[in-house]
């Protein structure tokens, strides 16, 4: 595999393809989970084309499949997508695009494209490598993600009872794999355990989807605490 930090154009593009293939590997289970969760192939692909942010897509499908309402499904996926606003904040001065290209850039602003672009310091070449990394990764992930979720969505229809294949265990495992890289210190582990406990404690009393949404309060408390800790020090 090529070095993600090499600023040679060919190395950047080949890394972008590698990232696209890695994302496609979880596009397949997403497509399958969406269809077994009650979405049509068209609805699944509308999400991949137009929502195009994996964790939010998984969450929307997960909440709906669990019997949650439209409001909690939409709110959970939108809250999960809030981080993309901060990626956009970091990318805007690097990309310097206006008009239609800015609308397209916004759609491609996700974990992968931002991470690849940030690996290339703007000071070195006025952002040329960072822009190439952003666009090539964004386009590669977009194309391969959409093909992969379509394959998963079409394939799921061929299966019998999804429980016989353990697909109901694959969905929480997918969420675990998405949160895993974010569990880097004691604070993140505390947030994770607190949120899990709160969601389970509320489950018997509230409609599916609402307990998960309410754990955003855990995130707000943790955020306030983090800022307070920093000002005390």
């Amino acid at each position, binding site marked *: 595999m090529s070095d993600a930090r090499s600023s040679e154009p060919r190395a950047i593009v080949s890394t972008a393809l590698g990232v696209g293939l890695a994302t496609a590997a979880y596009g397949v289970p997403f497509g399958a989970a969406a269809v077994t969760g009650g979405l049509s192939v068209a609805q699944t692909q509308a999400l991949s084309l137009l929502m195009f942010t994996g964790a939010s897509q998984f969450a929307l499908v997960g909440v709906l499949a669990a019997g949650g309402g439209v409001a909690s499904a*939409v709110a959970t996926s939108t809250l999960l997508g809030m*981080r993309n606003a901060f990626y956009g904040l*970091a990318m805007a001065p690097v990309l310097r695009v206006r008009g239609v290209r800015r609308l397209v850039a916004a759609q491609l*602003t996700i974990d992968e494209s931002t991470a690849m672009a940030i690996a290339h310091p703007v000071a070195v070449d006025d952002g040329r490598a960072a822009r190439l990394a952003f666009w090539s990764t964004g386009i590669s992930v977009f194309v391969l993600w959409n093909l992969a979720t379509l394959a998963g969505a079409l394939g799921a229809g061929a299966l019998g009872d999804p429980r016989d294949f353990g697909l109901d265990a694959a969905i929480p495992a997918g969420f675990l794999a998405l949160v895993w890289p974010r569990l880097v210190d004691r604070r993140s582990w505390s947030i994770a355990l607190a949120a899990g406990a709160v969601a389970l404690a509320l489950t018997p009393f509230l409609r*599916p989807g609402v307990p998960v949404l309410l754990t955003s309060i855990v*995130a*707000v408390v943790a955020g306030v605490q983090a800022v307070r800790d920093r000002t005390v020090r």
Partner: protein
Amino acid sequence: MTEIWWAVLLGIVGTYAAKLAGHSVPERLLDRPLVHEISDALPVALLSALVAVQTFAVGQELVLDARVAGVAAAAVALTLRAPFLVVVLVAAGTAAALRATGLVA
């Protein structure tokens, strides 16, 4: 239009608005320590809550079934740095194998 289409369309509007906001709103509105900290914590909280609920809940009921073993196996795979697809397959395979024995629901 069905409920699912409403969820899909409104979800698309919400997530795209978040993406576009980063590229459009003045930096000083978003670039505050508290907003950064909360936005870092949000995915951790929501994804962890989804792991918990999807592992233990059926509707509003909490149950122990083969999913628990599947997710535990996925955690082991993650500590061994397995890629996403392997993690998901390990979870599904573990749950499916346990069910096939007929001992676990």
